[in-house]
């Protein structure tokens, strides 16, 4: 996972890029990374373009992240949600939890 930071604007969205795999093998590192992003307190765009594999552990982590974002009032958007992610969300019933808050869609447009 990499971050493309735009230092210019303090409130410019951070782009969080997910790798190809988001499974139990990866979640320990991913969790540390996501905590780092959360602490930046900036809107986030989660770029899952490359994501190919995701399992329950990965989906659960992303769900926990989404809930944390909501609780902190941090705006985030998925860009995009590839098929693997969509299927995981559907099968695990995580659709409601992982929805981007409407306001965030604006930053997506801005990014």
């Amino acid at each position, binding site marked *: 996972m990499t971050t493309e930071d735009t230092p210019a604007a303090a409130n410019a969205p951070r782009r969080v890029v997910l790798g190809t795999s988001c499974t139990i093998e990866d979640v320990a590192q991913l969790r540390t990374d996501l*905590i780092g992003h959360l602490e930046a307190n900036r809107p986030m765009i989660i770029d899952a373009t490359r994501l190919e594999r*995701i*399992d*329950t552990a990965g989906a659960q982590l992303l769900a*926990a992240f989404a*809930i944390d974002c909501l609780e902190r009032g941090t705006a985030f958007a998925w860009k995009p949600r590839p098929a693997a992610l969509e*299927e995981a969300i559907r099968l*695990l*019933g995580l659709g409601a939890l992982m929805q981007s808050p409407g306001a965030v869609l604006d930053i997506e447009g801005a990014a």
Partner: protein
Amino acid sequence: MTIDLAQFHEMFFQESAEALDTMEQTLLQITEGTVEKEQIDTIFRVAHSIKGGSATFGFTGIASFTHTIETLLDLVRTGRIGITPNEMDLLLRSVDVMREMLSAEQYKRPLDEQAVADLQDSVKAVIARSSGAAPTPVPAPAAVEPGSSVPVPAAPAPAAAPGAERWRIGFRPGENLLARGNDPLRIFRELSRLGEMSVRVDAAGLPPLAQLDPHRCYLNWNLELAGPREREALDQVFDWIGDDADIRIDAPVIDAPVTPAAPRAEGSAVAPKPAPEPMPAAAAQPAPVAPAAVKAPETRAAGGEAPKAAPSESTSIRVSIEKIDELINTVGELVITQSMLSQLMVNMDGPQSEELRNGLGHLERQMRALQESVMRVRMLPISFVFNRFPRMVRDLSQKLGKKVELRMTGEQTELDKTVLEKIGDPLVHLVRNSIDHGIETVEGRRVVGKPEAGTIHLNAYHKGGNIIVEVIDDGAGLNRERILAKARERGLIGPDEELSDDRIYNLIFQPGFSTAEQVTDVSGRGVGMDVVRRNIMELGGNVQIFSNADHGSTVRIRLPLTLAILDGQLVRVGREVYVIPLVSIVETIQIRREQINSVAGGRAELLRLREECIPILRLYQLFEVEADTTELDDGLLTIVESDGQRMGIFVDELQAQQQVVIKSLETNFRQLTGISGATMLGDGRVALILDVPGLISLFESREKQARDDRQAAVRHAA
């Protein structure tokens, strides 16, 4: 996907045959009463593996039988019964029956079903006795038909109500579910294949990222699944998952005003269910703990006896013997090409000839190494043959009421596969003979002050490019006088001929010679020692017997390491070149005319050499070729020996000594008396390889014929 399981049958038969050998050998290593843990584990594993395979490949009968055996073995393994002679007998007979069953399947042969059933009943009786009034045999495996469904041994399922539509499933993962590689996502995906599914997640337990253990599942789910009529379909998906998750499957609701399941907090009580406990995991009973009757391996060292070598299980691949022989053949041809090059080099001069010669020297050494490695591929330890003896000695000594202990040493000595296959029967014959005629009865041994149990020692070792296999017994030894009398009676030796003891003992290898006074069931079945000797000689070996009255006898078999190469002496007769195996050459000499005796009336010429008279064979006469000379003192005499008999072979000239490659391993035996095979020489010519034992016996039979004629003539005259 349709897969034809028949393609694995051959492999299954082969490995099962090997597994049964292991089982038998291990059984025979068990000394009465004490079963080593390793031994019973090995036997159990083997039976288990045959059971699994036969069930998988659809051999229901074998699966059922091995299952019964396995149940018995499990009782032994857990220390509930020991192996008394009765169990030992049942198990050994079971090995035989399993062999029968396997070959009946393999070769589509009829099977004595009644014998199988009877033995199985006997085993079951032992099981029933030892597991008390209520035997709880493990369920027998059902052989699967390809494509059929698995009978899941799950808990009783609530019968699906008629018209049932939606199953409600509560799924609460335990701590280890994810860490062990299970994934609700995949499970739900499988469930969703069964019918339309709706999923509700309960994320109440999900902590913030900072407190989250990412390898643990905090989410719970309530699923509703429309579709499958049978509970089994659900059980199959969950199967082991029940161990790591709390799964509640409620009887399907008819009509579907679905009341959303109330989200449950961690640790809240599960609502009482009307259905019996549906979780498969709960049905699993812990296995009874075994009493410690099975000896732990550590106690072995205390026994004082050297630990027996475990049957070696090594990493290997299977290669067909044809492929290996093809390889050997090609290497053989390479060797010929190489020696052809070396021969060309002999007369070569020039600035680079020395370098070329050096290079060829390297090539020659490397070729030899390559050839040796390739030959080694065909080599197998003689234990493959020895292994059949513990059982045989046990059965035979029981039958004859004798006590016999078998000792085996040098089992790891390796032999060419063909030699190995052909040496089995002669060895069986020799061991039978030793038990039947050599070892005395218990009383007989007591009288002469020997221990009650006789010993038969099978020994194998390398000696100077040969393999020696010995069968040594501590029985009564051979009866010199009786053999002598018999030999005279049969006209094998002249009435006044005096022989050394060794020569006398070796007379028993003569055709038709048998001194056993009564034909016993054991060894007197017409196959004599002459057949043993012939078989061994056909392998390029020889056999000798040594005996010591009251102390026993030793039969010593000498076998070539391999049938494919031979250290030979090239000899020339006229324009022909022959190869004499170096192993049989004693010396080569030039002789003087006055050393020769012609026996009156006989065709033989004899050479007097150091108090010995050695018959002379003129090779050019035998093979009807034109020699440089027919005068004995112009040529050379190569003295050869086999079985203690010597002969002088008259040739024109000695040529090089070299290793020759015998072409066509399996077929090139014995097309001609006196010839054991052929080889190609460096210059491309074919040379015949002389069969020394064959030549000697050819010569002897001619002599005997001449002697008989002589005697007939004398009688006629009288």
